[in-house]
């Protein structure tokens, strides 16, 4: 039985790695937001989430907690699932709604404008994430000597299989309902239109700003986690001196 339980804990953490912070487009496991994950011998799962500050935005907090619940419930052999957002100023409302299996409007009745599943908010940030990832891939190609024409001519099939940004771009396009066939353009605007060679550098200027915004927010979150929660996690960009 011990071996089975251990596997299950690992598989729960594996599933949680699919959950991304919508604002940062990074897995919540890599951001250190999962502070505890327990699986009972019978298959009951309890996951505790903690965000960098108690004041992190309630809507994004809800999305992460709800997504965590969804991916864990999908696992075979899992019975009851409890997701607990700890030390958050709207944690009580969010935890109660999740426990009842309700959406965001259930957590905050009369405080939403009709987007009870936060789909519009989620989509907005999927688009930002796509722009940011594409800019990183594009800059790497430019650094390797590709011309704007060569970049605009690239197809999804030409993207490097081993680049996490490329894999994530395809996943983001899938979730946004954009064409991501191997033969479709590698670089697209959030509308799905291809980025034209003539406008590539201008597009990159704005795309790079979006990417920097996401990266800086990720950096601030990591700094706060370290200072506020004492959680030191992998930090791709810099270390707090």
């Amino acid at each position, binding site marked *: 039985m011990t071996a089975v339980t251990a596997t299950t804990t690992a598989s729960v953490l594996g599933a949680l790695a699919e959950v991304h912070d919508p*604002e940062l487009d990074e897995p919540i496991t890599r951001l250190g937001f999962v502070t505890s994950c327990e699986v009972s011998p019978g298959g009951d799962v309890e996951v505790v989430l903690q965000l*960098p*500050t*108690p*004041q*992190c*935005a*309630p*809507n994004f907090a809800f999305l992460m907690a709800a997504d965590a619940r969804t991916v864990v419930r999908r696992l075979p052999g899992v019975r009851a699932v409890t997701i607990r957002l700890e030390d958050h*100023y709207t944690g009580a409302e969010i935890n109660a709604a999740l426990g009842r299996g309700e959406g*965001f*409007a259930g957590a*905050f009745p009369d*405080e*939403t*404008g*009709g*987007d*009870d599943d*936060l789909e*519009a*908010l989620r989509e*907005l940030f999927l688009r*930002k994430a796509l722009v940011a990832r594409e800019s990183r891939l594009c800059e790497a190609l430019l650094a390797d000597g590709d011309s704007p024409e060569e970049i605009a001519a690239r197809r999804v099939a030409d993207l490097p299989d081993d680049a996490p940004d490329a894999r994530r771009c395809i996943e983001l396009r899938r979730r946004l309902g954009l064409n991501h066939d191997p033969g479709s353009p590698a670089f697209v605007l959030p509308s799905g239109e291809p980025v034209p060679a003539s406008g590539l550098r*201008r597009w990159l*200027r*704005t795309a790079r*700003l*979006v990417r*920097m*915004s996401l*990266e*800086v*927010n990720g*950096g*601030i979150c990591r*700094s*706060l986690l*370290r*200072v*506020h929660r004492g959680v030191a996690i992998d930090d791709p*960009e*810099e270390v*707090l*001196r």
Partner: protein
Amino acid sequence: MYEKDGEQYFVVDAHQHFWDASPANWVKGQEQYAKGWIECFHAYMGLGPPETHWPLEKFMKYSEDDYVHDVFEEGHIDAAVLQSTYLKEWYTDGFNTAERNARIAEKYPDKLIVNGRFDPREGEAGLKQLEEDAKRYNLKGVKVYTAEWYKGSRGWTLKDPEAQIFLDKCKELGIKNIHAHKGPTIWPLDKDAFDVKDIDVAATSNPELNFIVEHVGLPRIEDFCFMATQEPNVYAGLAVVIGGLMHARPRFFNKVMGELLFWVGEDKMLFGSDYGIWEPKWQVEGFIDWKMPDTEEYSDYPHPTTESKKKIMGLNAAKLYDIEVPAELQLQNGGAPAAKEDAQLVESA
């Protein structure tokens, strides 16, 4: 006045606080929010150099002596704007009221400016209060915190029709600087609370007012930049950018400054220490010493000059608040306009 390498800088700190977040001021039943708020601020202090960190107890309520020491004696500050943030749902006497700011300001009338606040959800009573405050504190500016909780509502936006009534009142009262501060909640809660589009709407409808977006719209700096490049009356408040990034994340600091210089420009960026979150001394000294690195990674960004820094550190804010700058501290040639070679690129984007 701060002097370095033979250059003299007139320093205006456009964003400071003098708060009381001590437990004695916590509203009964709301302690978790009052405590969480100030502990979150305290965590931000941890992003500055370790020798500038305070224990939480001092951070919750620092004294007038602390203020005078940190700001005037050590901080190189010539003039400062004390911003008001009420949060009366959580703090009995308010977190940082205009009244509390005025207690210090009236002792240093030639150096300190008190900014008021308004909240459109307060209606008629709020308008009356704004009139009284404008008279009492000679207001030239207000700070609006759109994420403030009020009687069951968790926020508002500057494009609400009620907000326009208050902006009109500001014009009538001679209040011309609106410092907008975004926070994690807004009504309705399913929208992105950090979105700065409402400031865009308000700035377009009210060209006679200046809108200073605090902490440059972080965490939506991209939305802020796209907006500020189109709105002549929108300014970047650098509080948090310098305090939160310059020490903790110098590479990001270079990039954020580079993007702001490109999109917003050095004529529309205002230094703010966000004291008591961070002491001004290390921020002023560090910013004057800072240079955009001459490496490939930053080659696309404008490289600020001594003149750029003089504007950002004080001359831009002095203009907005009609602060008199001694002749020898003004720009010698009257200040050449910032390079705008990229404007075309931006406009056609």
